[in-house]
């Protein structure tokens, strides 16, 4: 039992499966054993039935699509600005000096606290929801991209100078390719965070989406529906995470030995 010692792959995935099984067993015990009232904790069977119902009447897919659209829009708008700006801040001290103090300040203001303002300014439609997700994602994202770019080894930039690179070609041929793996990883992590802002955005003034569905179900005491929606968000988050990891492995195969 040495610390950090490797374990076999099957043991590793076995442990993960065991955790799911254990949690499921505790849940079943509490719910089927009536240790917790059904109004607070639905049984796994009840959740499964609700899930099938929501799939059959199309409401789950609809809510999921609306939510996915909002998260993706907010995230993409954020990424389109944050990635180039973060790269600039990580390389050019002028940009760093101008932007970092303000971003570092705004970052600590909770995005949810801005919701009333966004409603006043943008109304209750889609722009407001997307804005909340954008606001929650952008400041973290830009600072993380900046950090990635800052960590590009100076020697790589210097050696490119001695090979004749200058101006834009240093960005183009050294800084961007060297930062790209870190940037894709940043996007993966911040996409997960964007999902967490979704529910915040949909709790107020929404009439569709998974966050809205959760609030709506809570009002009528449908704990089963709440479970289904939360599990759906978890599932969607996990799928996007896997997609990002797949993209990462394809794009950056050069980081692995034997390629």
């Amino acid at each position, binding site marked *: 039992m040495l610390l950090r010692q490797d374990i076999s792959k099957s043991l590793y995935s076995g442990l993960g499966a065991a955790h799911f099984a254990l949690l499921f067993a505790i849940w079943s015990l509490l719910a089927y054993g009536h240790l917790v009232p059904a109004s607070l904790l639905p049984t796994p069977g009840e959740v499964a039935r609700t899930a099938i119902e929501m799939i059959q009447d199309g409401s789950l897919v609809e809510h999921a699509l609306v939510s996915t659209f909002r998260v993706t829009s907010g995230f993409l708008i954020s990424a389109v600005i944050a990635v180039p700006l973060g790269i600039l801040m990580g390389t050019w001290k002028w940009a760093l000096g101008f932007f970092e103090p303000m971003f570092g300040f705004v970052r600590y203001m909770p995005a949810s606290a801005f919701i009333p303002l966004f409603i006043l300014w943008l109304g209750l439609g889609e722009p407001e929801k997307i804005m909340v997700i954008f606001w929650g994602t952008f400041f973290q994202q830009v600072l993380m991209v900046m950090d990635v770019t800052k960590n590009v*080894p100076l*020697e*790589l930039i*210097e*050696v*490119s*100078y*001695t*090979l*004749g*690179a200058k101006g834009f*070609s240093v960005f183009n*041929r*050294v800084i961007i*390719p*060297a930062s*790209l793996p870190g940037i894709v990883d940043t996007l993966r992590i911040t996409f997960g965070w964007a999902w967490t802002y979704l529910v915040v955005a949909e709790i107020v003034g929404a009439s569709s989406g998974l966050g809205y569905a959760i609030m709506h179900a809570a009002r009528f005491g449908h704990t089963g529906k709440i479970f289904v929606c939360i599990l759906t968000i978890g599932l969607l988050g996990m799928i996007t995470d896997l997609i990002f990891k797949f993209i990462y492995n394809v794009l*950056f195969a*050069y*980081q*692995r*030995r*034997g*390629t």
Partner: protein
Amino acid sequence: MLGGKGIKLRIQGVCKTFNGRRNDVEALQATSFEVQEGEFVTILGPSGCGKSTILRIVAGLTEPTAGRVLLDGREIKGPGPDRGMVFQSYTLFPWLTVRRNIEFGLELRGVPAAERHAISQHYIELVGLKGFEEAYPVSLSGGMKQRVAIARALANDPEILLMDEPFGALDAQTRLIMQEILLKVWEESRKTILFVTHDVEEAVFLSDTVHVMTARPGQIKETVQINLPRPRTYEMKDEPEFLRLKKRLLDLIRAESLKAV
């Protein structure tokens, strides 16, 4: 073994003081020397003596506090492809194959693909990396990475090759082999080389001229000509003249290392 083709590089009264927060640190006292065309010149000194600073000033990566550097009679301003550099740390671009790393400078200059390919192939074979053209740096050993770095610098056809302890991160055995490979490459290309090391035997084995530096703030303490015949082979390391030169440099540098401790 000087080509006698004239002076390639002039370093005139170059000095460097780094401005620290509390106090300024004088890294290099006014230093002047010349490098002949086709000559292999080594700056030998204890760690922290400012020898790398000289190289970085010649490369244009560090600005001297005073003095100037002339390459072919023109004063250098900032870095440029006429001065190729090999660093101690591994500086291959990890996202490019061995071949594309070597072609990096050629691509920047817009050299046509067929010509690029011919040049990179020549240097790949010269440094003994045939078969590794399409490998990525992650799968290369330290010695192989430095051979690619040397090939990459040479493929760009610089006026002078600057080498900053290029074998410093390698194990002792690999180091010896790399020295022989470098000599072979140098004898073929006849590039002017300015080399920095703290390894006395390396300096004797490779160089025509060795400048021994003092401890910080560095300056040239003594210049020693290495008139061993070329091509040099590792057997020469046991010959009396080699050992005599090595002893001489060791004595010089030991006195400085003691001061620096």
